[in-house]
């Protein structure tokens, strides 16, 4: 940490009057009311234009009749009210995709957390060299872009040229043909590339737990599992909440893996998740309003997750 440059030399005793505020609120400074807004301005402009406005547009389009004819200007856009939603909710495929998305995301989250936490604990049990090796391997998986990860896993499980079928003696069994085996394959890839975030974060958290606490528990005769459940897990709660919520958000929005590995949603759309479904509706069949309605449904589901997150943060008494 370098000393602030230029502060050497004679201390100029030009105490600023605006710093002379009471001890109680050192952060507030009179005469600088506009400063935070000045600092926030770039972020607010970017977020307003490229996040808030598109969200508004998304909502708007979902209430309109908006297909290729309207996009090219051939027909005027008409207000549909909840017509698009009625069409969507009346479609059996939508419900199937919704259920598949929730189950798939839940499977990914649970597996990712289990693997990530188990390996984080394992990391604390080993010496420096194995730890570094495992850490580097995990960072490699984490760094792999979703597209390349997907193609590599497809090659590994390829019915003709892949090593996995060879080793397991499965012949030319196709993993992407059946609905569940295709989902399982994507799940494996997702867990592979997302457990490192959980592992590294939880490991950093465990390292921050004072050693004496664990020692005391060990001296009292607590088993490994007991230490994890009764000492570590409660102390790591804030971290576990963060990684769980992040995983839920990421896994609910999986797009690339499904798109690449099941070739756009699988045979007859059997492997569609909401994101890919919305994309196909909008960009493959030009039903932009239906695609937007699906987007709104996703938005609302994730909004609910956010509210749960905020609740949990509040209960921890964390000050925002």
């Amino acid at each position, binding site marked *: 940490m370098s000393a602030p440059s230029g502060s050497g030399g004679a201390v100029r005793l030009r105490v600023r009057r605006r710093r002379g505020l009471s001890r109680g609120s050192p952060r507030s400074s009179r005469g600088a009311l506009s400063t935070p*807004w000045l600092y926030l301005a770039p*972020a607010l402009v*970017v977020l307003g234009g490229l996040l808030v406005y598109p969200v508004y*547009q998304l909502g708007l389009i979902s209430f309109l009749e908006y297909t290729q004819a309207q996009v090219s200007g051939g027909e005027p856009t008409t207000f549909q009210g909840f017509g698009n939603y009625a069409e969507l909710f009346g479609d059996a495929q939508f419900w199937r995709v919704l259920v598949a998305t929730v189950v798939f995301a839940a499977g990914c989250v649970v597996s990712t957390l289990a693997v990530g936490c188990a390996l984080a604990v394992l990391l*604390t049990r080993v*010496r420096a060299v194995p730890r570094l090796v495992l850490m580097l391997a995990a960072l490699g998986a984490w760094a792999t872009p979703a597209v390349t990860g997907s193609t590599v896993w497809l090659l590994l499980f390829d019915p003709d040229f892949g090593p996995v079928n060879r080793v397991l003696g499965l012949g030319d069994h196709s993993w992407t043909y059946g609905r569940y085996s295709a989902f399982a394959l994507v799940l494996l890839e997702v867990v592979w590339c997302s457990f490192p975030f959980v592992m590294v974060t939880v490991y950093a958290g465990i390292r*921050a737990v004072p050693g004496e606490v*664990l020692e005391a528990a060990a001296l009292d005769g607590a088993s490994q599992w007991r230490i994890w459940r009764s000492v570590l897990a409660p102390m790591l709660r804030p971290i576990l909440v963060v990684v769980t919520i992040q995983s839920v958000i990421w896994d609910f929005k999986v797009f690339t893996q499904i798109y690449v590995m099941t070739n756009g949603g699988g045979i007859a759309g059997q492997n569609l998740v909401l994101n890919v479904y919305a994309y196909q509706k909008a960009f493959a069949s030009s039903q932009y309003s239906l695609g937007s309605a699906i987007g709104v449904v996703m*938005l609302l589901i994730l909004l609910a997750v956010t509210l749960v997150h905020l609740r949990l943060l509040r209960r921890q008494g964390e000050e925002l």
Partner: protein
Amino acid sequence: MNLSRLRVRRPWRLAAEASALLIAVAVAFPLYWMVLSALKPAGEIESSEPRPWTLTPTLDSFRRVFGQQEFGRYFLNSLLVAGTVVVASALIAFLAATAVTRFRFRFRTTLLIMFLMAQMVPVEALTIPLFFLMRDFGQLNTLGSLILPHIAFSLPFAIWMLRGFVKAVPQALEEAAYIDGASRTRFLWQILFPLVFPGLVATSVFSFISTWNDFLFAKSFIISDTSQSTLPMALLVFYKPDDPDWGGVMAASTVMTIPVLVFFVLVQRRLVSGLGGAVKD
């Protein structure tokens, strides 16, 4: 941890270490297979007896990848997009995080909650309105159509994460700087910025990866001008679901993965401490 040395008995530790190494091999195996397949000669990849080694490594697949397309150009495009997003979002997020942690003002908590909620917005769902927005501003088929949304989408997480780092810089330091006559701007850039830098690095990993990996926007916004393509789209040229050119796909995948790996190895230490710091906060 001394604790593990204290308590864990020797055979148990050896078993743990053996399994750690085995797991590391399993985790790294797909990456190994990727590089290996990229180096195998054509006949060996498409063989029904895949071997975990090759005796005749060749760069043919790489040559094909770079020869068949303007792969170098796509690589530069990807680098340009990701680099711009990382720098721009880091600077903007730094300013915003400073505002929400070192000042008290009206709507501060509201803003924080809004940043948190913005993080949850499924950006993929915004592809449709963004597509029309980009079209109206004539940005389709330009790199700008990839850069701008990614800056916006990496900001909320970056701000949320940097908060902890900015908070950790003691208030006394700020007071001292002002007493020494530093201006607000000077404090911001010459004192706070260097101190928060490790946090910026940890944060930039996330924006770099999400931008470098982006497939959906690249696919949706770069529709006709392939000179503006980025790597993920170029890679899929070699992947035809019925008859993929595995050698080409794996060579392209290797080229696409290496920059991220390098970036990760460079920031590895800061990432681990950074994540710990941010979450502990």
